[in-house]
């Protein structure tokens, strides 16, 4: 059985299929049709809903793509859909975000609108109903696509919501949830279980040797919603407290397998700014609210955004299973395209790395067709120090350049101990050419990848030479100036 609050009301589901998503539950089982399906792949945000976790005496909300989120994952939580915001029997009882969207002409066809509303209401909730900055607004809607308006009126609506403080939150409040047992659904077709301790997790893995492990599910669920495969046996790790921790001790960072990108952004912004800056380019707000760092490693995609960074930090993985735990350097984890050193019955417990000191130069670059929520054509992370005019502590790692996230060992070797100069960098660029044979696909040609991979190394050098000053088109000041006139 799954129990949760739905728009403030206690709710339980007895007969869900193990892999039922929130969206399918809402639309097909419940007939709650306000939440829309635009893509069923977490790319458009039309299905955005708000999920509340009860922690330390209060509800904490995040926006998620309901199309690729398991219903079982919200066991014990609070699900708020656009139906929960306003009393639609009376026009004046709109949520301030909804009211602003109406007044600013923020909808045209209206299909994406409930999703935008939910993203903005979540941002408003997390900002304690204070006026949102433009940066917060763009972050909140980074995973919401609109094809009609050109976004300007939506952003204006979000920025004009300044009267919130006076209004208490309008959606239905839920009481503190009673403690609930682990979600466990068994049907004729399969079983999904969300253990609430690591011991339960191990027991579940022993019980269900063919089960797939799922953290956020932002990649795994696509097998179901895009390829229409049935995921019969699933073990969710998102309720295991031991796996949800971020530990920072003596410059050593350990990030648990169930830690989401958003959790990292909230707690590591000062500790590891280069990583957090890079994470802003990972997926969208909704995806980062669900997706995990370890999931980004475990699915072993050649274009995962975080592995190149972790490779430059000499990160290690702690792997666990029935027979105990072991540490494995990350660069020994990726074997080939989508193949890893993870053994049957094992899971990644956490990823561990040492923070670079202030004397270390670290830069991460992601190149894609679109800035927000796109997959890299090429991603480069460099790390080096210059001591006595010579490069040392050099790590260079690329995404999108090989079948796995990969260090540029020849280029690293070329830099190490060599004079810190553009000539040395040029030589390393040539080494990158010999070391990688990128492919052509929907994101970029092989030639472009090879060229950009080299140029990014030069860019890192130019920025290093300029005292760390960035020379990027993304650095333009975020000053908003919008005007309309109804006459020339």
């Amino acid at each position, binding site marked *: 059985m799954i129990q949760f609050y739905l728009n403030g009301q206690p709710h339980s589901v007895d007969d869900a299929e193990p892999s039922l998503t929130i969206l399918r539950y809402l639309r097909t089982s419940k007939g709650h049709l306000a939440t829309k399906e635009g893509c069923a792949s977490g790319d458009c945000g039309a299905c955005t809903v708000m999920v509340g976790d009860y922690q330390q005496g209060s509800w904490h909300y995040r926006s998620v793509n309901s199309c690729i989120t398991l219903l079982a994952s919200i066991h014990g939580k609070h699900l708020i859909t656009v139906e929960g915001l306003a009393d639609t029997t009376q026009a004046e009882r709109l949520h301030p975000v909804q009211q602003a969207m109406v007044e600013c002409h923020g909808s045209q066809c*209206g299909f994406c609108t409930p999703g935008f509303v939910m993203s903005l209401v979540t941002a408003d909730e997390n900002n304690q109903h204070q006026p949102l900055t433009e940066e917060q607004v763009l972050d909140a809607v980074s995973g919401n696509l609109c094809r009609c308006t050109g976004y300007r009126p939506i952003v204006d609506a979000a920025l004009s919501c300044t009267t919130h403080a006076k209004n208490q939150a309008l959606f239905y409040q839920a009481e503190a949830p009673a403690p609930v047992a682990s979600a466990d659904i068994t049907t004729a077709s399969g079983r999904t279980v969300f253990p609430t301790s690591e011991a339960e997790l191990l027991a579940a893995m022993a019980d269900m040797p063919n089960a797939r492990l799922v953290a956020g599910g932002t990649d795994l669920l696509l097998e179901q919603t895009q390829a*229409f495969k049935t995921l019969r046996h699933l073990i969710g790790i998102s309720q295991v407290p031991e796996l949800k921790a971020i530990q920072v001790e003596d410059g050593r960072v350990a990030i648990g397998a169930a830690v989401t990108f958003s959790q990292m952004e909230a707690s590591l912004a000062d500790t590891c700014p280069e990583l957090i800056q890079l994470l802003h380019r990972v997926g969208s707000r909704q995806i980062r609210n669900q997706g995990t760092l370890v999931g980004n490693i475990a699915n072993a995609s050649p274009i995962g955004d975080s592995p190149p960074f972790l490779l430059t930090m000499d990160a290690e993985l702690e792997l666990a299973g029935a027979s105990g735990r072991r540490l494995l350097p990350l660069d020994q984890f990726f074997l080939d395209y989508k193949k890893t050193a993870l053994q049957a019955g094992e899971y990644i417990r956490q990823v561990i790395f040492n923070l670079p000191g202030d004397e270390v130069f670290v830069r991460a670059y992601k190149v894609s067709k679109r800035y927000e929520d796109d*997959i890299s054509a090429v991603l480069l992370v460099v790390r080096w120090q210059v001591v006595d005019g010579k490069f040392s502590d050099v790590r260079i790692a690329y995404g999108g350049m090989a079948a796995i996230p990969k260090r540029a060992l020849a280029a690293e070797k070329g830099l190490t101990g060599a004079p810190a100069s553009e000539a040395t960098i040029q030589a390393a660029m040539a080494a990158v050419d010999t070391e990688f044979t990128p492919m052509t696909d929907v994101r970029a040609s092989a030639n472009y990848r090879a060229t950009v991979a080299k140029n990014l190394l030069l860019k890192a050098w*130019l920025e290093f030479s300029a005292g760390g000053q960035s*020379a990027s088109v*993304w650095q333009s000041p975020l000053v908003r100036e*919008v005007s309309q006139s109804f006459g020339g």
Partner: protein
Amino acid sequence: MRNVRPYDPNSTAAASAENANAPALFNQRVKKANTSALGKPGIHESAIKHVTGTAKYVDDIPELPGTLHMAAGGSAYAHANILAMDLDEVANSPGVVAVYTYEDVPGELDVAPVFDGDPLLAPGVTQFVGQPIFLVVAETYEQAQQALPLAKVEYEPLPANITLAEGLAGGEKVLPDNVITRGDADAAIASATHQLQGEGYIAGQEHFYLEGQISLAWPTEDGGMHIHTSSQHPTEVQKLVAEVLHIGSHLVTAEVRRMGGGFGGKESQAAVLACSAALAAYHLQRPVKYRLPRRADMERTGKRHDFGFEYRIGFDNEGVIAGIDLTLAGLCGCSADLSQGIVDRALFHADNGYYLNQARVTGLAPRNHIVSNTAFRGFGGPQGMLAIESIIDDVARAVGEDPLTVRKLNLYRPGADTTHYGQTIDQLVLAEIIGSLEQSADYWQRREAINGFNSSNTYLKKGLALTPVKFGISFTSTHLNQGSALVHVYTDGTILVTHGGTEMGQGLYTKIAQLVAAEFGVDSAHVQVSATRTDKIANGSPTAASAGTDLNGFAACNACQEIKGNLIEFAVRHFNVSAEQVVFANNQVSVGEQTISFAELCRVAYMNRVCLMAHGFYKTPKIYFDRATNQGHPFYYFANGAACAEVIIDCLTGEYKVERVDILHDVGRSINPALDIGQIEGGFIQGMGWLTSEDLLWDSQGRVISNSPANYKIPTAFDVPRHFHVGLYEGANPESTVFNSKAVGEPPLMLGIAVWAALRDACASVAEHKFNPRLDAPATPEKVLAAVNAALAFTEEGSSNA
């Protein structure tokens, strides 16, 4: 004639405050926004329903008991003979109720909109990857999808032409070549001071309406079908469903309340879903819903045409065109679909706002083995315009002038005001619009500043461009330029309007409600616009060509005037006043000294047997075209505008950001400035997306590889320029359109060309604007980097030669 309307900055707030304070007219759930008076920026009639999620789309209609779900098996090959098809396992898959092939179609198999060539299900030979070859009907959506891979199909692959070049080389055409000629282009080019030639490629675009294609078919008791469809052309859906089922059109009703976006993608493409669902519903006598998964939608429905172009041009020292020979070849796909109108419109817009002088403009329509490309906002016009804007840039850099200078010199002007297809431009406003924008956007000062920036930066470069838009309004198929509306006035003074246009977000229903309310002098809360249905409005045109308001709005006004005429005639008799003494205003009617409510007049009129409903009809005047000579007056009028864009590019990666955009656009006298600004901004961003991040790609086997929003990237809020200024040009439409407004749906898309031209300007700055780097559209970071490197190579070659 200039109609000056002072801009009231408080009008939006005023309008909504007025709505909020207005007493509730009726004791009902107020889910409908009160829209505003003509000319005021009222909110969309469905705005409140949008934000609360109560606006219903086809997939939100509650499913009747027994509703089944459909999926289609598609061809694995771009071009193949189907030798054998074993569908037993499909039929035996859990939940599957029925499986159909082309042999199960009782009537017409071809569902093409104009010419033949679009079979509902491939009859033996497949023409593109994903072309439906069989249909599965199952108890659930998932069960239908899961059954598809169980089909065993044996193919004999045939040679396939995937790229435009392959299609042209293959020699097969979906339509004959079309050449528009004026004078002797060859002689003019040859005798001009300068000649230039070049070529370019403009990729297509995926519509990416947020609501995917969908149809729901309900069998009716009369042996007919009621279709809920997400279609811009319900009449065509009705006609094709009737033909496929071999029943009369009178037994088929197609209904559209709203679409979650259309952009042309639901003009002809919706019919396949409607006919497929109807086919199964007909055989099974059960409701059938057919909703395309996003991926299938992106792989199997037509897109904007890619166009390749080649040109030769002759011009003088200042860059004034003496003659041009321009060939535009459209990637039509496997059938004609709407390609005739699209290629024609590309030819009609190959001048954009410029006098081409001696001209030969040729359109080619080869056949390819990919999905048949279709209507998309602009309908070929954008590709024709991008070609000429690219050429003008080439000419400007060849003569060493700023492109804006050369643009201005070539604009249509007195004495040079006739298009290559023989239409005289009556309203020469582009010079004024450009001049105004040039000033408000500080074009020349910014040009200086950008030159300074570029000379002091090696790896970051800026670009600037100001490009005009002149877009012809009317369907080029003359017969489509008609509209109908049905207006019912009830005895409580409320008004129900049905018209032939469809609502896809553009605000057509809102504008119609405003127009109707204004006719009767009532508040628009009195007016309800109902779903568009073929049983209310017969023989409707597609909501396309930007003409929705022009056609249906005028028809609605005509219907209102007939009813008003009846009411006035009655009031004259009943109250013994003259016709001039009957005035409709403020929800009331003055009859001489007396004032009664509009509702009261309606009630009394009804009691005296006065007809309070009317059908209104409208056909666009003045238009004609002779296809034999390619001369005529195909457009009632032109909508105009201009955009100025500034970009910054990274010469190491090709990444870029659009920093500032200024727009001045001509919507005539605006019926609703908020909706019109919405169309302008939304159209601009969609045009920018087309030319920048939206990269439509096929592999060599003809599979669409940009088949998901994960790999096909439309703009996000982040991509909107931080400095974004949009203004409406002040000026009524000199033609007698409704409220002297102008169509606004498509034209603003082409304002996005300024971004592409600015990117190319930035690339050319690497070679100090002495070189024309090729920059095919879309200008992805990859293509920008290639253009930068080409400019660099030119400069290095120059310096090594020197």
